[in-house]
């Protein structure tokens, strides 16, 4: 099934292109900053708010304080990607466990667990993240935990649905008859079989997490100065866009690119893994 899916995925040019772009971006984020002679906090008074140019090695220009935008943008990229990936990993871990347990155990347990999910779902997610960011003074760890804390809800629902339909299958019956413990059944039979939708949704969750974090940073409540996050860079850029367009367009462009790429890959995966695909 995976090989088929891979073949189908490869046929969708948008998704393949997006994967290449993401790889390129990842490479840039990791090693890019080391190529430049500038640090992310270094103030270059000789080149304040300068447009991108080759000679001074300020390839993306500088901001109004003289900080090199190339390094800052890539650093912001690094942070945004890291938060997106880690927060998604946390949501997947929690969501899959929760959903599988609820779906498999069924009955009252399932009802109660899903009620809790519904309740949490009704809360205005962003505002609680904001509240927690304020209360804990934009502590990076708290930030990342709260962002991930809301992500697992939909994952749990999806996994529960999948588990419910899996429950009736023969191999589960066989495992039970063979005397397998519930934990064993869950880990070795249920989870591997729900991975398809999980992978798809995880790929689509990553941009959501990145968006949430950059929204917070844009409003000034996320990653703190002098650390850069793409959202914060866009905020600076918006404030100076009359005189320094690149401050807005370059981080904004990178952010949009990453979000679009992840979404294309996710959509491609979803279509590739869906056995009922019609052209």
């Amino acid at each position, binding site marked *: 099934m995976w090989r088929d899916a891979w073949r189908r995925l490869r046929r969708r040019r948008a998704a393949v292109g997006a994967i290449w772009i993401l790889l390129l971006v990842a490479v840039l984020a990791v090693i890019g900053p080391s190529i430049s002679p500038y640090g992310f906090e270094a103030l270059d008074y000789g080149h304040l708010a300068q447009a991108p140019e080759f000679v001074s090695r300020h390839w993306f220009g500088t901001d109004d304080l003289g900080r090199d935008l190339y390094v800052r943008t890539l650093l912001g990229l690094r942070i945004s990607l890291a938060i997106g990936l880690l927060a998604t990993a946390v949501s997947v871990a929690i969501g899959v466990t929760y959903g599988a347990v609820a779906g498999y155990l069924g009955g009252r347990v399932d009802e109660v667990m899903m009620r809790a999910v519904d309740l949490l779902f009704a*809360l205005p997610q962003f505002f*609680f993240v904001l509240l927690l960011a304020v209360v*804990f003074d934009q502590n990076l760890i708290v930030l990342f935990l709260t962002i991930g804390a809301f992500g697992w809800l939909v994952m749990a629902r999806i996994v529960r649905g999948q588990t419910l339909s899996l429950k009736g299958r023969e191999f589960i019956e066989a495992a039970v008859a063979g005397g397998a413990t519930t934990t064993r059944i869950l880990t070795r039979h249920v989870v591997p079989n729900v991975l398809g939708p999980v992978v798809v949704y995880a790929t689509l969750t990553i941009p959501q997490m990145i968006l949430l974090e950059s929204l917070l940073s844009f409003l000034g409540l996320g990653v703190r100065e002098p650390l850069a996050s793409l959202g914060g860079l866009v905020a600076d850029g918006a404030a100076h866009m009359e005189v320094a367009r690149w401050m807005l367009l370059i981080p904004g462009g990178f952010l949009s690119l990453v979000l679009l790429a992840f979404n294309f890959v996710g959509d491609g995966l979803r279509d590739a893994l869906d056995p009922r695909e019609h052209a």
Partner: protein
Amino acid sequence: MLRYAATRLLGIVPTLFLVITAAFFIVRLAPGGPFDQEQSLPPDIRANLEAAYGLDRPMLVQYGRYVAGLLRGDFGPSFKYRDFTVTELIRRGLPVSLTIGFLALLLAVSGGIAAGCVAALRRRPWVDPLVMGVAVIGMIVPVFVIAPVFQLLFGIGLGWLPVSGWKAGSVGDLVLPVVTLALPLMAYIARLTRGSMLEVLASNFIRTARAKGLPWRRVILRHALPPALLPVVSYLGPASAMVLTGSLVVEKLFGLPGSGRYLIEGALNRDYTLVLGMTVVVATLTLTLNLVADLIYAWLDPRVRFNASAPGP
């Protein structure tokens, strides 16, 4: 129908209660207090201040007083804007925010449905990919990237529209904020409508209508469109939540004196009562709007009312 509405309405109350309680205790968890950021106060003055604001009482008492206040419509004093109560601040900003939000929703729904239909009907081969391409970009590129770009393009570059500001009764000021706020929603609704229309147009009863010789326009408007709109209606709930979140960004960028801006400033100033109050207001709005959307959906699709566990298509 009434019974369904009543049950759902009652269902909101515990959730709201949960939200208020959670928000209240989260805020009280904050390390330090609201007076920490000032220059250090002599201890007796601080004790007096805290007594005046009721902060020296045990937590549960404070909670009780807060909830009692809420029932009276009193959100407590603002800790940073010393002369104002939170209620006053919220009341100042809310009309602006609600106006923008409502207009944006209206635009998103009408524009989105229209765009989706145009894409689904495909009068020309390039229409569908074009509309959907624009929709994807509108959906995914964040509001806070699109907004400044629009400001740059339409305000500074072309000079057609004012970049920011809010003069009472000025329509020009409204255009950019409302359009920017509506864009992601419009894009998503367009996608939904297109998909839904395509499905409906392929169904049997449409074929029957056409076979009967009904004019195409009538078939679309009276027979195809109404069922196709169901997914859009169910999206209205999450859509209003998105409008609320988006308005924070839009108000900040366009300098609009709405309640979202107070929330952000309150957050940056660590003005806990203000942030708490706004969270409560937003939660109430979200839950109410979700309820309204669900009720509309239930009214349109009777299956929902009678079979609570199967929420329709």
